[in-house]
């Protein structure tokens, strides 16, 4: 049962990395868009889905509190600075996107939106990096400092996520924006940045091999998934290269979505069944079973919540379907 809930937690996080990643990517790309018209068109392309995208992070935090009550404290503690950046980034991104068109001074808000997108993409990447690195956790459950965050390899992992998210955001805009200079610029960005991000992903993978943290139990699975990330993001770049100047882009987006979905799975499966690997004492490592709530709680959640996740997915799918045409052809004036 605890593995089922670990899977559901993973599902929420994957959904967030793909959907929230697309928000972060578009947010970071705002400065690359010229003029208010282009920026509004980009924001309105994510408009109907934006709130639904963002709340997967809250959903994941909720699953963490309920199904893994003995994990959230340690996890937040171990990655404290990154989590602070994430929380502040979420606050600023959500407020900024909403507020920018309510006032006259939009440039400041656009800078805030871009900065919070960067903070989020980097923060989540750092969080995965810290998990792969392992945390200084002793047998008593106490954490000793933030040593993992001083490791350059962790920062490379964060940087790799930023690049993936950038490609993802640009790929989404290629797919959804009307033909025009903005779409063409995004397309060229994907063409150039896709292979670069793939290269960085392979370098980060190599870095983890050199480092070989003791906590990693399934290096092969992790490697395969990391290579798929690299391939997917390169494929996004190649697909964008072949794209005509006016239409299409669904495949580019699909490839970048795969690339953004996999980092969570790669990190989690490399560590499984451990979640928080201790660098101080292997006995202090927190596994999925250690962290999970009691059987009755998990059963109840499985009966009460799991079927409704299907409803939630259906509603979000309906949202994408209902707004399938409007987002690409017309702009709403709300944002």
């Amino acid at each position: 049962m605890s593995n089922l809930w670990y899977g559901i937690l993973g599902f929420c996080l994957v959904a967030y990395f793909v959907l929230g990643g697309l928000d972060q990517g578009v947010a970071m790309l705002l400065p690359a868009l010229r003029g208010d018209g282009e920026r509004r068109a980009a924001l309105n392309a994510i408009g109907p889905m934006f709130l639904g995208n963002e709340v997967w992070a809250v959903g994941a935090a909720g699953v963490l509190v309920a199904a893994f009550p003995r994990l959230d404290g340690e996890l937040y503690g171990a990655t404290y600075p990154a989590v602070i950046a994430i929380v502040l980034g979420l606050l600023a991104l959500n407020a900024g996107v909403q507020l920018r068109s309510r006032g006259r001074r939009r440039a400041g808000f656009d800078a805030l939106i871009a900065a919070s997108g960067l903070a989020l993409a980097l923060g989540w990447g750092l969080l995965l990096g810290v998990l792969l690195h392992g945390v200084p956790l002793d047998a008593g459950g106490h954490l000793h400092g933030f040593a993992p965050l001083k490791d350059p390899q962790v920062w490379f992992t964060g940087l790799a996520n930023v690049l993936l998210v950038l490609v993802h955001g640009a790929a989404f805009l290629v797919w959804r924006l009307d033909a025009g200079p903005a779409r063409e610029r995004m397309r060229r960005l994907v063409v150039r940045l896709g292979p670069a991000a793939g290269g960085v992903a392979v370098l980060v993978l190599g870095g983890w091999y050199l480092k070989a943290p003791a906590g990693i139990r399934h290096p092969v699975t992790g490697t395969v998934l990391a290579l798929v990330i690299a391939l997917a993001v390169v494929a996004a770049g190649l697909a964008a290269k072949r794209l005509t100047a006016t239409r299409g882009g669904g495949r580019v987006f699909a490839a970048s979505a795969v690339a953004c979905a996999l980092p969570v799975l790669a990190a989690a499966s490399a560590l499984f069944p451990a979640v928080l690997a201790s660098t101080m004492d292997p006995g202090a490592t927190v596994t999925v079973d250690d962290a999970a709530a009691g059987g009755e709680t998990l059963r109840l959640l499985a009966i009460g919540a799991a079927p409704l996740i299907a409803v939630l997915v259906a509603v979000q799918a309906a949202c994408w379907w209902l707004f399938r045409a409007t987002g690409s052809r017309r702009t709403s004036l709300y944002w």
Partner: protein
Amino acid sequence: MNALEYARLQFGLTASLHFLFVMVTLGLVVLVAAMQTRYVVSGNPVYGKMARFWGLLYAINYAVGIATGLVMEFEIGLNWAGLSRLTGDVFGAPLALETLIAFVLESTLLGMWIFGWGRLGKWLHLALIWGVAATAMLSAFWVMVSNAFLQHPVGYALDADGIARLTDFGALLSNSALWFALLHTVFAAMTTGGILLAGVSAWRLRRAHRARRRRELGPDDHELFRRSLRLGIRVGLIGTFFTISFGYAQFGPLGDNQPTKLAGGAKAAAEQAAMVERFGPGDYLPSEWVIPSLEAMTGIANLLFLLLFVAQVLTFRDTLIRRRWARPALWMLTVLIPVPFATAILGWIVREEGRQPWAVYGLLRTADAVSPMSAGALRWSTFGFTLAVAALAIVDWWLLARAAARTPGGEFGTDEETGENRELQQEAMA
């Protein structure tokens, strides 16, 4: 201040600020849904304009406050590790149901509603706002289930390690600390929404009359605010009545569940002695803030009911708007806007401060629930989070005021006259 005090201050401040957003959200959503229903059923465009005007305020408040709840989830994990470790199994379950189902679904539906104006079918679009309203209520329900467990833990058993395990979910749902408190909270939010509606409408109408600026409000807009005023007063009055009723109704279960909360004088000493006998030495009486907060809340609520009753009487033949001598009542309604918020915070002080020294009443002391963190680290996070959430609250109110001051029409990219999507219209014409 020590770590415990910082952790409590931090959660108290962020939760209070978060609740300011919640009250507007819960209060306005049902009103907006009701307006839109009348619009769709009757076809009267003034209700469509009303739904969009107030819907914009609702959407702004929701989107600005959306991430403030996340700060609290984060605080529970980080600052209150003892709470998660010991009782997380039980009180975490309803919290997860809240975030995962109610909140995520609510946000998804709201995004569709905001961007669906003039694009989706009218009935589908109406269904979306009712979906938002239903999931908002569901959110409130699950949060209160969690809170009721902290007030009066039921449905659990301690295992060999002393960790509370959920044994009876039904008991969580029939908790005597739950239903009256939930209804009290929901009606308080309805009151807030009603008074916000009435207060803003009164301000707009008063401003239009006072300056004799007929152009200030067109006849349509005048009608919009006239109807909003009447609706707001009525909802505020009914909401206050039920808020007060379900407030008094809580005294019964409260005496059994938390004997120390409101005990005073000799009774306090007796309860203190009984608690010492049960749980060992310690101070089991809550701070001196609780009783004055309770008295202030009750006094304000009763006065509010009286004032709203007068306003309701004055809505007869629109006396409130038409007669010069009744104008001060319009001014009063605007002044009342912050009152429900302040009263609700007093209510939470009674409920939460009155639970002290327990984090989970009779089961886990607040001092044992707090994480082993240094006061220094907590000081900075308290400062940072409070500043961030307070800044959002200020920005929210500034934006709400601006949105309330604007001429109705054109919200959500809709046409001012027909409410249709402007760009779709242009395309149809071309």
